[in-house]
């Protein structure tokens, strides 16, 4: 189980070679390093190095063009009184707390629907995966078109049932829900496939045993499907939360952070600070705070999983 092995120590193949003589072992070590080297060099230069560098840059005043000056913790202190940062954080949290449960619910309901032994299910599955396979920037433009005030398709449909739809993307209240609807549409396919794979792997004997005991469909769902599906659910929740904390593409294209800063997300604010205001130190400080939030939230989920996620070994 991918999620579980993330925390488990790597399985060692030590027993096989532990009894060998010293020489073959050091040769094996040399071989191992040769295999790892290409990946390791790239990893050190382009991932590990930059992570450390982000820590250093966050302590500097730097506009990329003139030499940096030492700022100490000033960039972090700036976060406190910066209303845009707090609204970006609030917007990101709002986006996450609505889009993640919605995506989860839609993915699960569709996976359950597709798992009912219907014919042609492969066709439905493929078509339902289509949004996931489109490119975010391109479909963001389509959604702008759907959301056109007054006569856009969304409001035209609402008009048919007598609702006067809002000017979605320029409305203080509705811009974020509109972004969330588009994001759920874009991403439910991934969760759906993961849940389908999970549902397929549930042993049928469990359902049969439950039936013999005379349990209802709801009881079977509650006592068999949900616990057996919990590892897949945990995976989808963790990856969706990490993903939604990093939402950027659709917000940039559809609202550009507006109206005002109502849909400015953390990543968009980092991008603006670094590459429009050329305030690299401050942008790095913001990105480290974002990282901190992701670590805290992910750690909290791993703690929760001990109580909620059922593994069968």
């Amino acid at each position, binding site marked *: 189980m991918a999620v579980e092995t993330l925390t488990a120590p790597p399985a060692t193949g030590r027993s096989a070679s532990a009894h060998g003589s010293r020489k073959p072992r050091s040769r094996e070590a040399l071989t191992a390093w040769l295999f790892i080297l290409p990946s390791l060099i790239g990893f050190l230069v*382009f991932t590990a190095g930059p992570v450390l560098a982000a820590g250093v840059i966050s302590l500097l005043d730097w506009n990329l063009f003139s030499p940096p000056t030492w700022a100490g913790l000033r960039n972090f202190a700036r976060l406190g009184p910066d209303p845009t940062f707090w609204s970006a954080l609030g917007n990101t949290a709002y986006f996450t707390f609505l889009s993640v449960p919605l995506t989860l619910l839609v993915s699960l309901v569709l996976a359950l629907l597709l798992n009912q032994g219907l014919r042609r299910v492969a066709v*439905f599955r493929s078509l339902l995966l289509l949004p996931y396979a489109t490119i975010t920037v391109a479909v963001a433009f389509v959604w702008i078109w759907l959301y056109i005030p007054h006569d856009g398709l969304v409001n035209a449909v609402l008009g048919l049932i007598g609702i006067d739809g809002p000017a979605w993307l320029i409305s203080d209240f509705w811009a974020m829900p509109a972004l969330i609807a588009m994001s759920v549409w874009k991403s439910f396919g991934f969760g759906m496939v993961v849940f389908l794979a999970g549902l397929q792997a549930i042993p049928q004997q469990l359902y049969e045993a439950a039936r013999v005991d005379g349990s209802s469909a709801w009881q079977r769902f509650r006592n068999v499907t949900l616990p057996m599906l919990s590892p897949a659910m945990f995976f989808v929740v963790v990856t969706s939360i990490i993903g939604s904390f990093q939402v950027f593409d659709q917000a940039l294209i559809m609202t550009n952070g507006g109206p005002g800063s109502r849909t400015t997300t953390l990543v968009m604010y980092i991008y603006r600070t670094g590459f429009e205001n050329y305030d690299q130190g401050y942008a790095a400080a913001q990105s480290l705070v974002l990282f901190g939030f992701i670590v805290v939230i992910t750690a909290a989920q791993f703690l929760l999983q001990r109580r909620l996620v059922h593994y069968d070994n």
Partner: protein
Amino acid sequence: MTTETLTLPWRSTTTDGSTAVRKLLVFGCFLVTALTLIPVVMMVLVAFQSDAESMAARPSFWPSSWHPENLQRAFELVPLGRYLLNTVIFAAGTTLLETITAALAAYAFARLTFPGRSWLFGIYLATLMIPSQVTLIPQFVLVAKLQGIDTWPGMILPHAFTAIGVFLLRQFFLGIPKDYEEAARLDGANRWQAFLRVIVPLAIPAIATLAVFKFIGQWNNLLWPLVISNSDATRTAAVGLQVFQDTNGTQWNLLLMAATITTVPLIVLFFLTQRWFVRGITMSGLGGR
């Protein structure tokens, strides 16, 4: 664990499979699918509308006249062909490098013993949670210092080595029985030969899954090309669509035609490789086994 579960005959999980319920379910599937497809269908339909129709105050659903010449006009208005080629180079370059280096490293982590293996793998794992925005600025600075802005190495290399690929492939390699490889070793194969002739062929579905995930991700990538490419020589389609909007306001038919053109190759690739994709998810053990 069965790897072909999704292509096996579909098993019902309920006994109450009366025809009425069944018809309702099929209707439900149909309705949800139709609703889901509306944005994609609209993208294609508007792409074929006339300029006036697509920009009218009251947008229309079905084109009143079809304009296939919009396809050509989209390519003429911006260097869309160039952008697509750039996207292919960027996505294929990162995918190829990542797949090869990740497979090699994953093999060593899964099968070879060496001092420091656990802690090095631990460091790889630890970076999985780091959002790419943290490394964005230092990577940009590094590439700028190396004169790599607007060059292919500058675009590709920073995104060609990630821990996730190593982690994913290591999971698969661990699942391959050791006996296979030991048989080859007894026949005199060295580690390199065992890797190439035993492990790689058995792990093709896993490697393909990684490659497809990576390719789709990079085809979609907006942020990195946005900061690192500043001319048509390296600009990708995702970035190019924005330029399209900037220079043409909202000429919806051509914009959505360009969006269609950018999306279609990805959809085709996705459907050609969907079986691996689905199988890869099943094989990674998320199925609960």
